[in-house]
């Protein structure tokens, strides 16, 4: 490098055209890379290899913020913590009570499914993940979470928060994973309008927290305030998860399709924990159920619930 460096200040005119040529070379290289990356072809492999380099860097940058977080937790006001604990305990009790009712409904559902000879529902499991304390570019529509392949995450698993669907696992590293948000313009989600059972596809709008529905028939039964839930078509997302609220429907006369805008239920601001739906819990279940005891099933049900 140094011998080229020293040649830079002198011979400017001759150097200039070669610089232009090099600039063009790099610009074309960038364009090609971006195009391939956008189209999602072989750069995918380069990319996943390069994120292996990025992961330790992410961890290194996050470490001081993580430390600050634990320190502030340690020195948090005792009375505030106690109040928070009480609130959480109350919340937990309420949720438990609700779950007891749901358990009953689930058993009933199983019986009915048995009567109807319908296919059994897949046993799903959840894994709680925490957002890494890092900000990616807001236009990447990605989140980083602190669980990865070693904790059982796989590409394509749905990600939820307590209000609704957030996105799906997009890329899995050893101890972290990136989640593609529903708002990514590349993302399409099969949804259903809860009220009218109308099925359609919701695309990411590229604006954070917003979806757009672009292929609605003009006479589609959809109104402002309708709730969109996942329809389960495509087999990736569980049916019935709340997704978004319709906030605007426009029917331009003369156009072939009506359009709608919907706001995501999931609130990404302030959320630190997300749920990833994993469905590989079946083997673990079998192991735990190999200890047959009539009394423990009740206990187990409670454990599963909590």
């Amino acid at each position, binding site marked *: *490098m140094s011998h*080229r*460096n*020293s040649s*830079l200040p002198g011979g400017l005119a001759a150097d200039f055209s070669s*610089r232009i040529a*090099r*600039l063009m070379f*790099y*610009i074309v*290289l*960038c*364009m*090609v*890379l*971006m195009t*391939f*990356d*956008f189209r999602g072809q072989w*750069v995918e492999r*380069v*990319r996943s290899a*390069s*994120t292996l*380099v*990025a992961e330790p*860097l*992410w961890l*290194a*940058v996050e470490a001081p*913020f993580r430390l600050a977080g634990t320190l502030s937790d340690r020195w948090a006001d005792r009375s505030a913590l106690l109040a928070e604990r009480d609130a959480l305990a109350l919340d937990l009790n309420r949720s438990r009570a609700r779950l007891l009712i749901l358990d009953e409904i689930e058993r009933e559902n199983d019986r009915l499914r048995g009567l109807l000879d319908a296919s059994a529902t897949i046993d799903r499991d959840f894994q709680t993940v925490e957002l890494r*304390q*890092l*900000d*990616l*570019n*807001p*236009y*990447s529509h*990605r989140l980083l979470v602190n669980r990865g392949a070693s904790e059982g995450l796989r590409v394509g698993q749905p990600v939820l928060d307590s209000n609704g669907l957030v996105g799906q696992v997009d890329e899995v590293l050893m101890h972290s994973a*990136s989640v593609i948000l529903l708002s990514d*313009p*590349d993302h399409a989600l099969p949804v259903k309008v809860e009220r009218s059972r109308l099925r359609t596809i919701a695309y990411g*709008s*590229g*604006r954070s927290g*917003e979806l757009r529905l672009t292929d609605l028939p003009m006479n589609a039964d959809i109104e402002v305030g309708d709730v969109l839930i996942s329809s389960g078509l495509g087999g990736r997302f569980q049916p019935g998860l709340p997704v978004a609220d319709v906030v605007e429907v426009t029917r331009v006369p003369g156009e072939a399709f009506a359009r709608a805008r919907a706001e995501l239920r999931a609130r990404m*601001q302030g959320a630190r924990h997300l749920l990833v739906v994993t469905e590989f819990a079946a083997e673990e279940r079998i192991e735990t159920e190999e200890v047959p005891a009539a009394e423990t099933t009740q206990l187990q049900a409670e454990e599963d619930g909590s």
Partner: protein
Amino acid sequence: MSARDGGQGVLAISLALGLALTIMPLPAALDLLRPYWIALIVIYWNLEGGRLRHLGHGFALGLLLDVMTGTLLGQHALGLVILVFLLERFRARIRFFPPWQQATAVLVLLLNDRVIHLWIIALQGNAWPAWQWWLAPVMGVLVWPWLFLLLDALRRRARAHSH
């Protein structure tokens, strides 16, 4: 070119810190105002340190940024390659500008970079960014003098130690 023997270590540390600042968590309201640290550091080292003068440097740094921030591979690289090219083109002039004029040049470079990013963001089908997005270069210029003084001081200390 006595400037070039300013610490290699300072360069590496400043780039590492710049990367850290780039992905450091900020409240959502401030996120759009985040100065483009790596660009500022590249400008400093190019003008004052006589380093990072090759387009390849900009390209490599840009790719690293793309991987770290999850943008399209080549987005930051394109911006930084053009930045380094423009810097090199007008280096002789910008170096001897009075400070306020130099700051204006930095602002123009950062704004130009934003335009490049805007173009790529729009091509990807994203929505138009909020108006705060354009404040980031202004933040960058506000940070610029302090960064300049800090890096200058560090470099001088590193050189004093090495002698």
